[in-house]
């Protein structure tokens, strides 16, 4: 029997979505409460905080505890769950006066520009007044309770998880409404005289009594499901129903009558019958604290370098070198295994580490933090060696001081990836890595600064562009301090530490473009005034300020071309692994009677990555100019709007590369076992090739991919809209200016969704 009880206690159903939602609500409330508590400690006392948290806990217990797991087997358990959702959680939450704390807990921008217009709108205010009217509240609650207890609907909820959740939500929502006029959470006004709430509660008790009496005295089992499920207690189905009815009767009556009693005392003890404070903890007027001395709540940006452990590690002078050494070692392993190991991609570390793991982890790092790959770049050793052996004294030619060269290299790389199936060719992969080492050695051996990173490296360009929407940026902590600085070590360096090799002057630096997260500026700054600060992702895309070493994005067609190549490249690269696309290519090959797929691939590649983007973007620019009646040139418009597509492109890369990481993640184990075994070391045992398909196609992965795409698409639309507003003038319609670009984004989004829903071909991989 002990196992039985143990099993019951283990039957928790902790849904991560619900936990995340409750944590978000709790965090927002606490943030807002903290501010309001400082302003008005009596009105927003600790009791309110405790009540709110008790309410959230009651809600959590109702939906996640064993009550939920056993609700389908015992009616009394289901009743307890419903009582928690209607009689316990809602009044406790309302006693926390959640309206103001939840609003004040929101980021100011979200409150002002997001929620503000809705809350200030007369329609919503009218609606709010309507639904909080006591008559509406009472009827809504009573109807909800009665309707869900009709066997047809109750059975529906028992049979369907979806309707069960709808039932719980409607119970909770209507109960919030029901308790609203009783508790009148601050700053709500009093709609009916206070004494009427006593009648309000007594009427609710009558309804509760009628329903619970029906359950208790009915001679048959009302809900057939409970008659058919196995009995796990001594109670028969009918006894269970009677017990549930009794619980509803007793507990429900207490829940109505105790507040009714308290209200009666209040009304009788108050001469005017105006609401006193026993149910609402309201502060008497005029007792709020003098606000002139309240502490400032303004916070500075969160700084990764100021965090206790991670910050110390990142600030360590040799950290970057250590991280680079690890990556260098991995690069050597990739080269060695790629040249001398088994030549099947999924069985070789050169086929697995760079294409499955590294790419996936890079995009996750960009999403969660910033450009951490460039920080740990393994090619730094070759660059430094080149500088020591060779003169490194020429400036990078002025004619190619742009991103055009990198754009060309990136286009070649994207084509080579498809044409030579690089992901399935360890040998080619090894030579690409070697090529990287040689070119970084030669270029930085001949030219000054970080010419390789800034003008050549395709990986760097990918990271620079995608990190424009990363949440972290190497940035000045206090701009005022920089105004007094005359030595500019952040860019010039000093005798010990070099300054920024990419010529990014910290006070003028905007966004992550061209920043390798090398932290040279952090170490060089004598005032310790450079950190890795948090900011709103993609906010740097909206404005067109002057950026150090780059100028304005709107004046840089090379950067626009780089961005658009990466955006369209994301879709082309993902489409390349689709079965329908491969079939289509084969059909075209047969149509033209060709012996090889290569010419078809080249033509499709040129069309989809060069011709089509150029045509679409030019068309958007022309239409945008014509519709918006704007005097700005098409080129400037294209350069301005191109940056808006970074989030959409990034989301497609993320959806694609995370798919590979999550489905082929275990492949590194047998590939390592094989590589180590080939060296005659039997330490890791025989390769377990079954692990290649060990990660099944997760049923939530498609949802996650579409969700990434959703957010990328929405962020692109929002950024595009804000960019269009930059051009707003009396003669210019921002909306018309925006429409062509929005249509292009919609088109790309639809293509992205189509790609995600297609079966993957996974050429050359053993993972399906």
């Amino acid at each position, binding site marked *: 029997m002990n*196992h*039985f009880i143990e*099993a*019951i206690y283990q*039957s928790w159903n902790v*849904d*991560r*979505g619900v936990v*995340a*939602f409750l*944590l*978000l609500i709790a*965090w*927002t409330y606490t943030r807002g409460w903290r501010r309001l508590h400082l302003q008005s400690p009596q009105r927003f006392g600790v009791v309110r905080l405790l009540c709110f948290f008790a309410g959230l806990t009651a809600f959590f217990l109702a939906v996640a505890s*064993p009550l*939920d*797991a*056993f609700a389908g*087997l015992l009616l009394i358990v289901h009743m307890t769950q419903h009582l928690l959702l209607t009689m316990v959680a809602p009044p406790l939450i309302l006693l926390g006066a959640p309206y103001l704390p939840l609003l004040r807990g*929101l*980021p*100011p*921008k*979200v409150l002002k*520009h*997001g929620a503000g*217009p*809705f809350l200030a*709108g007369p329609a919503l205010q009218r609606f709010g007044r309507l639904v909080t009217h006591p008559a509406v509240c009472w009827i809504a609650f009573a109807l909800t309770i009665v309707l869900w207890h009709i066997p047809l609907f109750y059975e529906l909820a*028992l*049979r*369907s*998880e979806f309707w069960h959740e709808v039932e719980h939500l409607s119970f909770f929502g209507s109960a919030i409404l029901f308790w609203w006029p009783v508790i009148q959470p601050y700053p709500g006004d009093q709609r009916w005289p206070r004494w009427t709430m006593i009648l309000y509660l007594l009427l609710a008790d009558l309804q509760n009594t009628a329903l619970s009496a029906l359950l208790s005295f009915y001679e048959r089992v009302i809900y057939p499901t409970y008659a058919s*499920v*196995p*009995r*796990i207690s001594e109670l028969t189905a009918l006894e269970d129903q009677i017990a549930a009815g009794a619980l509803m009767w007793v507990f429900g009556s207490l829940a109505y009558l105790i507040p009714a009693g308290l209200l009666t005392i209040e009304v009788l003890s108050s001469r005017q019958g105006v609401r006193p404070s026993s149910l609402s903890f309201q502060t008497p007027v005029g007792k709020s604290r003098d606000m002139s001395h309240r502490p400032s709540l*303004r916070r500075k*940006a*969160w700084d990764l370098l100021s965090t206790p452990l991670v910050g110390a590690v990142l600030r360590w002078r040799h950290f970057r070198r250590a991280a680079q050494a690890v990556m260098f070692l991995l690069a050597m392993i990739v080269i060695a295994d790629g040249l001398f190991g088994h030549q099947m991609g999924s069985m070789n570390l050169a086929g697995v580490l760079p294409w499955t793991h590294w790419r996936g982890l890079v995009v996750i790092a960009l999403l969660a933090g910033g450009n951490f790959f460039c920080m740990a770049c393994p090619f730094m050793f070759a660059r430094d060696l080149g500088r020591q052996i060779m003169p490194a004294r020429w400036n990078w030619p002025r004619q190619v001081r742009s991103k055009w060269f990198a754009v060309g290299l990136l286009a070649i790389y994207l084509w080579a990836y498809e044409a030579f199936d690089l992901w399935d060719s360890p040998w080619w992969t090894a030579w690409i890595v070697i090529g990287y080492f040689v070119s970084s050695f030669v270029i930085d051996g001949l030219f000054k600064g970080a010419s390789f990173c800034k003008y050549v490296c395709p990986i760097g360009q990918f990271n620079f562009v995608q990190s424009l929407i990363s*949440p972290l940026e190497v940035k000045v902590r206090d701009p005022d301090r920089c105004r007094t600085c005359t030595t500019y070590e952040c860019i010039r360096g000093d005798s010990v530490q070099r300054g920024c090799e990419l010529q990014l002057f910290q006070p003028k630096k905007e966004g992550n473009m061209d920043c390798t997260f090398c932290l040279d500026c952090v170490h060089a700054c004598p005032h310790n005034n450079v950190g890795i*600060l*948090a*900011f*709103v*992702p993609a*906010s740097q895309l909206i404005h067109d300020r002057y950026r150090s070493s780059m100028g304005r994005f709107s004046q840089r067609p090379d950067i626009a071309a780089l961005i658009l190549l990466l955006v369209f490249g994301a879709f082309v690269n993902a489409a390349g692994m689709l079965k329908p696309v491969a079939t289509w290519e084969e059909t075209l090959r047969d149509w033209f009677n060709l012996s090889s797929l290569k010419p078809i691939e080249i033509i499709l590649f040129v069309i989809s990555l060069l011709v089509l983007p150029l045509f679409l973007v030019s068309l958007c620019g022309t239409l945008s100019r014509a519709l918006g009646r704007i005097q700005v040139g098409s080129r400037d418009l294209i350069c301005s709007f191109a940056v808006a597509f970074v989030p959409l492109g990034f989301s497609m890369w993320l959806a694609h590369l995370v798919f590979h990481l999550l489905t082929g993640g275990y492949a590194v184990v047998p590939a390592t076992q094989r590589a180590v075994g080939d060296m005659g070391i039997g330490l890791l045992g025989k390769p377990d090739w079954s692990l290649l398909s060990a990660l099944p196609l997760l049923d*939530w992965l*498609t*949802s*996650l991919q*579409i*969700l990434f795409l*959703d*957010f990328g*698409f*929405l962020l692109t*639309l929002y950024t595009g809209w804000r960019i269009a507003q930059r051009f707003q003038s009396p003669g210019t319609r921002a909306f018309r200016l925006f429409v062509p670009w929005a249509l292009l984004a919609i088109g790309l*989004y639809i293509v992205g969704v189509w790609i995600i*829903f297609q079966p993957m071909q996974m050429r050359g991989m053993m993972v399906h």
Partner: protein
Amino acid sequence: MPDMKVEKAKKKEKRQKDEEFLPLLLFFAFFVFSFAQGYPAHADGGIVLMQRSSGPFVITVFTAPTPLRAGPADIDIMIQDSKNHHPVLDARVTVALSREGGEAIEAEARREQSKNKLLYASLLTLPEPGQWEIEVTVVRYSEETRISGVMMVAPPPPFLLAYWWILALPPVTIGLFVINQWLKRRLKAGWKK
């Protein structure tokens, strides 16, 4: 000059406010990742498919979703002692599904997979609709018993229906944004008047 200073201070404050966004964003990311996992085939019983006494046990088979459809399905089993109806929690339970002329599926039902730890749950993917034979085998110590029955599997729901809430997210957000902008303009116009 003082105006410039005020403007700069305002800009600085605005930037700082922007930066407060990060913790919320992290929560939001967690929230998104949690919801992206969607609703798994909830191993919590569903409806009773059959209940039989066999050997020393009373075996009840639950299926979910309702109606049972081709695709992910949850088949749960409760085993009770036929004498006192106490749940039996230390048995080994296997679920075998077969279809005439079609493929056969076999899976072990385990309590760890179930929300309700009195049930043995098996999460299966039913490849096609139609009539399926189901056989449940229960082994406990030296006792082995099996029950069998028939279940009807309906065709799978439309493909896009499974992703409706994710696909609906952009149009809903855009709709809210349009209303937001419209309200903003109305409010501004109201203030000007």
